[in-house]
């Protein structure tokens, strides 16, 4: 893999107005690259007063780019985001699942539409402020976890392919978050002390329930135990995620109550007592839409580790390749609250192998239909 001199290498940095992408741009500029900052607008949240988060964030992008001394522009992907990410997001909720829009956004927008835009501007690389690392080794690109274990974002990047990785840079992937902040402070970047964004980008700090209710009609129904005892009402199945205690409002004595499953047909939320309720546990899943980072052929069955939600610890699993882009994943130990719609992401040590979407959940060879 040959690389041109930095001076002759144009890198487009996807800038969000946050500290991570600000430092990513700064580091590339210091390394001598021909850097261009681009702000991506995927969502319009302009309120009645004309206030829009994107406008505020873009103001920060402008200030930082002027400090670093690089040109900046903006690009609009609202339509693509709506078609490819938000539509999927709503469909998944309608199907009783808990989607991960960030995985889809990386796959369809940041590393597809945005990458194409960067290439159209003559860029050799697209850089982002993700905590992940790309390494060219043994004739192929490897995606490695970010050095900062706490911040590692490979979970969200699991769908990236060789083609994409060949054009991607993660300039802060080998840094600790605290170091990133420090660099920003030393350079007196306008975003040095800006709060990290939390939650799903288009919802931001808003109330999730209220937001979702604007797009999907909430259908109240019963909360029942598996024995059929009605424990109260829920406001809509989509507001509940399996394994969560939040918002059930069931009083009484004994252990706290948890959401355990859903019956979409009857619009019933299954609830049960105790964090370790046995019905929250499963021992294998199938995942669909699986994409592998490497193009090399995989053995039909292999052992590795996996994460089933962001920031979860790695768990030992056995992966069996099924037809198409489907796999079976057998856990070495039973796992609690596996959530269909979330990503199952596979690792070998520090290397992210790829991932897919959790589809069906099993225990003792039997499908747990109540979790989806």
């Amino acid at each position, binding site marked *: 893999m040959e690389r041109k001199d930095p001076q002759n290498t144009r890198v487009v940095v996807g800038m969000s107005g946050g500290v991570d992408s600000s430092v990513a741009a700064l580091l590339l500029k210091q390394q001598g690259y021909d850097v261009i900052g681009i*702000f991506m*607008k995927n969502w319009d949240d302009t309120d009645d007063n004309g206030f829009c988060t*994107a*406008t505020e964030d873009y103001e920060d992008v402008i200030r930082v780019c002027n400090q670093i001394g690089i040109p900046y522009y903006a690009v609009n992907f609202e339509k693509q985001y709506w078609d490819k990410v938000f539509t999927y997001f709503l469909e998944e909720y309608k199907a009783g699942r808990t989607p991960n829009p960030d995985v889809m956004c990386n796959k369809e927008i940041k590393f597809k539409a945005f990458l194409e835009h960067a290439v159209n*501007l003559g860029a050799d690389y697209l850089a982002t402020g993700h905590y992940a690392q790309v390494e060219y080794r043994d004739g192929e690109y490897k995606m490695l976890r970010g050095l900062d274990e706490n911040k590692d974002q490979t979970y969200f990047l699991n769908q990236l392919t060789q083609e994409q990785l060949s054009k991607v840079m993660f300039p802060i992937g080998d840094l600790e978050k605290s170091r990133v902040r420090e660099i920003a402070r030393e350079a007196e970047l306008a975003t040095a002390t800006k709060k990290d964004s939390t939650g799903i980008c288009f919802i931001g700090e808003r109330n999730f329930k209220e937001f979702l209710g604007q797009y999907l009609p909430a259908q109240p129904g019963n909360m029942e135990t598996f024995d059929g005892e009605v424990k109260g009402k829920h406001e809509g199945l989509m507001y509940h995620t399996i394994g969560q205690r939040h918002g059930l409002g069931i009083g009484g004595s004994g252990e706290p109550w948890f959401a355990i499953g859903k019956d979409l047909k009857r619009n019933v939320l299954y609830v049960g007592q105790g964090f370790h309720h046995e019905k929250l546990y499963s021992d294998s899943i199938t995942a669909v839409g699986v994409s592998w980072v490497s193009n090399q052929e995989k053995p039909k069955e292999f052992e590795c580790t996996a994460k089933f939600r962001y920031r979860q610890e790695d768990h030992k699993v056995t992966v069996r390749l099924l037809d198409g882009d489907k796999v079976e994943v057998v856990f070495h130990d039973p796992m609690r609250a596996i959530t269909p719609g979330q990503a199952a992401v596979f690792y070998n040590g520090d290397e992210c192998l790829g991932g897919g979407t959790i589809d069906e959940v099993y225990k003792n060879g039997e499908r747990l239909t109540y979790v989806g």
Partner: protein
Amino acid sequence: MERIYLDHAATTPMHPRVIEKMMEVMSLSFGNPSSIHSYGREARHRIDLARAELARSIGAKENEIIFTSGGTEADNLALFGAAESYQHQGKHIITTQIEHHAVLHACKKLEKLGFEVTYLPVDETGLISLSELNEALREDTILVSIMYGNNEVGTIQQITEIGQLLKNHQAVFHTDAVQAYGAEKIDVNESFIDLLSVTAHKINGPKGTGFLYARSTVKLAPRSFGGDQERKRRAGTENVASIAGFHQAVIIANEERSAKREKFFEYKEIFQEKLREREVDFKVNGTLEYSLPHVLNLSFPGTSVEAMLVNLDLAGIAVSSGSACTAGSIEPSHVLVAMFGKQSERLINSIRFSFGFNTTKEEIIKAAEETARIVSRLKK
């Protein structure tokens, strides 16, 4: 990298003679024009000289020139000032769909204040129809605001015919001449114009100054209150140095008008010729017949304005699109929407090239070649 500035419709560089004049005034005449002492008189004299020249440039009288902070303030003063003064004679206003936002957003506000506004459509060249204007006129129409030359596509309206049509009607006739002033010879009497807005920075003068011409018979309620400046129609200490710079810019604009017009029309031809030579597919937005000499708006099928603008900028060529792109929100150009409809591909693939006093033929050729190169690369 050598840069080429082809965005003179957005703003222009100051002419060296303007800078020289302003330096002189800033150094020597700092007085407040309202003061009674010699310093004040000196500053006042500068303004008087400017006012006389500006009035002469459009066939107006000196007391009909009101200095403002620029085109936007002139438009706002014209619209709100006239609307307030004539509201007892009616509450109907006519304008067009292709006005600058300084007029359109002022009209939106007037609607909220209880006025009724008719927004005239335009044809594919950006021209309003005189008969549609005539039909829209009502007994209670008090104000008609129609821009002189469009800032995005350059189309010039039939201002004199409109003036004639309105001359026996109670409605006051305002025209936003911000883009046309300097490029076109304007006479407010020949064209029966009652109110006319102008800004300095489009004609190589400084930013932050402009004027509103208001016919002496027209009533105009003020928008700002304070001192007695501008015959109480615009309170606030005058921006003396900028007004002197504006004065100088107007002198130059008048001297050089015909030579520049000829040169710019030739540039338009050369630009298109170069594109044709390179077999670039393009369409002209607007018309080449009744158009401002310095504005050329082209549509490049199969491209996107976002990629075009950035690529041109990275190649050192400064141009713009009619769409307002702030923080990545693309508001399609209301002018192109009015001309071609909401579904037109032109909304997302049109670029405005605009020329100025220091634009050279070599720059035009280089910009056209670079544009051709980018268009073919993007269409691959």
